[in-house]
């Protein structure tokens, strides 16, 4: 594949976290019985008209401001006409010539370098329903219109992306911003954050973009990688074989890890866009925009920079903590509960990014901190600082706090997790180990310093893991003398 430059532009469809749909009062909640959340408006019955949900405009403005877009004082809804059973009116109400946001960019770090990908536009539109095949006993298909009319933002990037890693980091950064703003839940699997990729290749050094293909149906970062990788290879093979790329829409097949043709440019729909006559132009007063600007929360990158600058966290820890607003807020609360400071910040960050993240990962879904409260985590850190518990105890306490919640001190007491710091108990255990391991003791004293670890381990084992590692270390060093 050497000699070829990959070029990617991404179109993201993000479902907005409004309570009701974009043009009617139906709820937007996921997972209801088919067609439980429908009314004459989102069913596209004769005579119905759309009434624009104000919150959708607010979310679009908020998103545009966070991404540095120019918010348009006047934007216009348009009808995108095509026939499909999941599209009740035979047209989708979207925006075309005059979207609500123009320009803007997404910033992220890639391999330690700062990257910016420019945005073309952001517009508001309604989602379609879903066709359900083979649901009826006779094999016929059904249509579920619960999703029809759920508000979407379509966020279109320029073809600025030059690698698959960059595409993934762009999406992660964009997703983090949307989740921070509280406008999207970032769920790729349930389809509330969806992505189509425009992929082309050109000879390295060229400035002329190649013919692109649009890839659809990638509902995870893994599939996105697979799809783009496959598509790049496919295009390079064609070009190296002397062929030409046909502009078309291709569908990713996750079972085969391939993309296949869905429709060619010739078969492409003529959507016959025209301004939606049932909705007046959307006017966003300048004062409104300013108010939204003032109300913007601190965004993930700014927060991460602050964590590095003020708390001395590593770039990695800061980035992981800030990727999810809930996690960052949890971190802030725990730090306050522990009294602040760089030392506490580091310990809390380690626990959140380590043990807590592992438990959340195992749990698979739900809140990223389970039932663990920020104050409880601060309590765990205090117990560590005071030498009450050590590594194994920490793991057990956090696990119980994550699953059941509660007070760390009570858990330590109930489970007998407190470590032994009493010197005489440690000395007794150390004496036993020294007596039982004359060979290792001799080699240590002869200069093999690494054997201290082994001996500490033996003492801990003898104390059933409850010895305070610092005390065990100190006692052993004292008894063994210098190596």
């Amino acid at each position: 594949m050497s000699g070829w430059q990959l070029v990617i532009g991404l179109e993201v469809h993000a479902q907005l976290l409004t309570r009701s749909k974009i043009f009617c009062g139906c709820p937007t909640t996921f997972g209801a019985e088919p067609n439980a959340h429908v009314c004459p408006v989102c069913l596209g019955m004769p005579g119905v008209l759309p009434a624009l949900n104000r919150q959708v405009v607010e979310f679009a403005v908020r998103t545009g401001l966070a991404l540095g877009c120019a918010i348009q004082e006047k934007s216009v809804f348009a009808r995108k006409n095509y026939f499909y059973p999941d599209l009740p009116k035979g047209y989708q109400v979207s925006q075309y010539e005059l979207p609500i946001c123009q320009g803007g960019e997404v910033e992220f770090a890639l391999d330690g370098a700062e990257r910016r990908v420019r945005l073309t536009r952001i517009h508001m539109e309604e989602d379609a329903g879903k066709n359900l095949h083979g649901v009826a006993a006779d094999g016929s298909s059904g249509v579920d219109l619960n999703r029809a009319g759920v508000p979407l933002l379509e966020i279109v990037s320029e073809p600025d992306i030059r690698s698959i890693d960059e595409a993934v980091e762009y999406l992660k950064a964009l997703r983090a911003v949307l989740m921070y703003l509280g406008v999207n839940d970032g769920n790729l699997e349930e389809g509330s954050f969806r992505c189509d990729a425009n992929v082309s290749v050109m000879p390295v050094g060229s400035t002329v973009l190649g013919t692109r293909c649009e890839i659809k149906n990638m509902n995870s970062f893994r599939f996105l990688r697979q799809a783009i990788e496959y598509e790049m290879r496919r295009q390079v093979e064609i070009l190296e074989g002397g062929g030409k790329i046909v502009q078309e829409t291709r569908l990713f097949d996750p079972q085969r890890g391939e993309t296949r043709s869905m429709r060619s440019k010739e078969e492409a729909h003529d959507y016959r866009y025209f301004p939606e006559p049932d909705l007046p132009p959307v006017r966003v007063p300048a004062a409104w925009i300013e108010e939204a600007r003032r109300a913007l929360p601190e965004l993930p990158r700014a927060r991460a920079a602050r964590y590095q600058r003020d708390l001395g966290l590593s770039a990695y820890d800061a980035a992981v903590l800030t990727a999810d607003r809930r996690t960052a807020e949890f971190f802030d609360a725990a730090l306050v509960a522990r009294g602040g400071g760089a030392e506490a910040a580091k310990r809390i960050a380690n626990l959140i990014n380590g043990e807590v993240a592992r438990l959340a990962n195992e749990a698979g879904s739900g809140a990223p901190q389970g039932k663990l409260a920020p104050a409880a985590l601060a309590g765990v850190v205090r117990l560590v600082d005071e030498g009450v518990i050590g590594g194994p105890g920490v793991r057990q306490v956090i696990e119980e706090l994550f699953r059941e919640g509660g007070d760390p001190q009570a858990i330590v007491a109930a489970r007998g997790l407190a470590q032994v710091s009493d010197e005489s108990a440690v000395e007794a255990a150390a004496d036993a180990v020294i007596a039982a391991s004359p060979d290792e003791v001799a080699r240590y004293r002869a200069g093999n310093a690494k054997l201290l670890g082994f001996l500490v381990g033996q003492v801990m084992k003898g104390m059933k893991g409850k010895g305070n590692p610092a005390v065990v270390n100190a006692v052993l060093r004292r008894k063994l003398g210098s190596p």
Partner: protein
Amino acid sequence: MSLPGILDRSLTDLSRALERREVSSEEVTLASLSRIEATDGRLHAFLRVAPERAVADARAADARRARGEARSRLDGIPIALKDIFLTRGLETTCGSRILEGFVPPFDATVVERLAAAGAVVLGKLNMDEFAMGSSNENSAFGPCRNPWDLERTPGGSSGGSAAAVAARQVFGALGTDTGGSIRQPASLCGVVGVKPTYGRVSRYGVVAFASSLDQVGPIARTVPDAATLLGAVAGHDPRDQTSSTLPVPDYLEGLEGGARGLRIGVPREWFQGGSEAGVERRVREALAAYEAMGATLVDVELPHAKYGVAAYYLVAPAEASSNLARYDGVRFGLRAPARTLGEMYGETRDRGFGAEPKRRIMLGTYALSAGYYDAYYLRAQKVRTLVRRDFDRAFERCDLVAGPVSPTVAFRLGEKVADPLQMYLADVFTISCNLAALPGLSVPAGLHPESGLPIGLQLVGRPFDEATMLRAARALEREMGPAPAPGAIG
């Protein structure tokens, strides 16, 4: 008031009689239903009569009157609705096979408002399919006929509404007007028809034809009757974001103020031989009557009016092609049996739509297609702006613009069916008003000197100034004396 003559009385008179308890709503409703029963076999103004429901509503209205709790001047008055208005529990077809059997789960806003006012709905009225037509001959359920001459059309698309009102089947009706569909049939049937300013009346629950042009309005036998109905349905509706939030005046107040001092614009372009001689004569006589009443006639120009029909037949079909996409057999109405999705769409729409909707869907799809949009749809929208500017300029010098409604009196059934373009020209004088989003009406201006068929005068007002237009129409109505009743229906 004696029962036999009551159906000849105006809505306003009946309202007074009901108030004085001289007659009950039930009695009038039963009389209207009998009249429909006796005449509609020949007229075919109704697609559906709902007698049980009507009688029940009438009794409820009488009970309210008895308790002294009448809801409005319309309480207990028999009316009917063009079959374009959604009526909960009552089939609504819009004159099309594709909606046959469609029973709406909700009422249009205007239907709700009429119900809140106490009006008694007798049934649903015939119309051109999806309001596309000027003769009612495009109804999938057979044409309505003109009560002045059963061999002639009542006009369209609200032909059933105008015919039913003229034939004394009901005291008033609602229609819709996209390019003249209230005013032209009102003119051809000798009744009053009002198309309000775009945005004055909610379109929610009105089957859409061309969304940027469609407007709901009343058809009645007198101007006060029409004003009463308009007042009951007008006003902002949060479910229609194109409806205006401007307050609705009391249209009856000042209605008898006469024409003195009004400046009436006479557009040169509407008097250049486009109408048949008898029509132009009666229209000029009406203008002379205004002068005699103390109004001033002012020459105005509408230089872009001549592009109106062409622009209309791009914008309206374009919007219709999109509005009619929902009739796909998936969720309601007709579904043709088929093996594949494409076949289902094709068969359903082929069987469900008549020739005129198909023609307009094709015209509109073409006008919106890639590569043609700028030349057709966009240019037509620019013409709309120019037509509106013509009127704005005219209204700097006058209060109303006046002219003919229809270039001819009612034409014969079948006369224009074979030539759609001739049919489209029936709306040559009414279309500008829709393109410019202005209020317009048709008021009887006498009978044709030879054929004895009715002729309407068109008045066009400033945006949201329905009141001045109605006052002027009322002045002419009083000057002309009681309008004659049609003779063909007995």
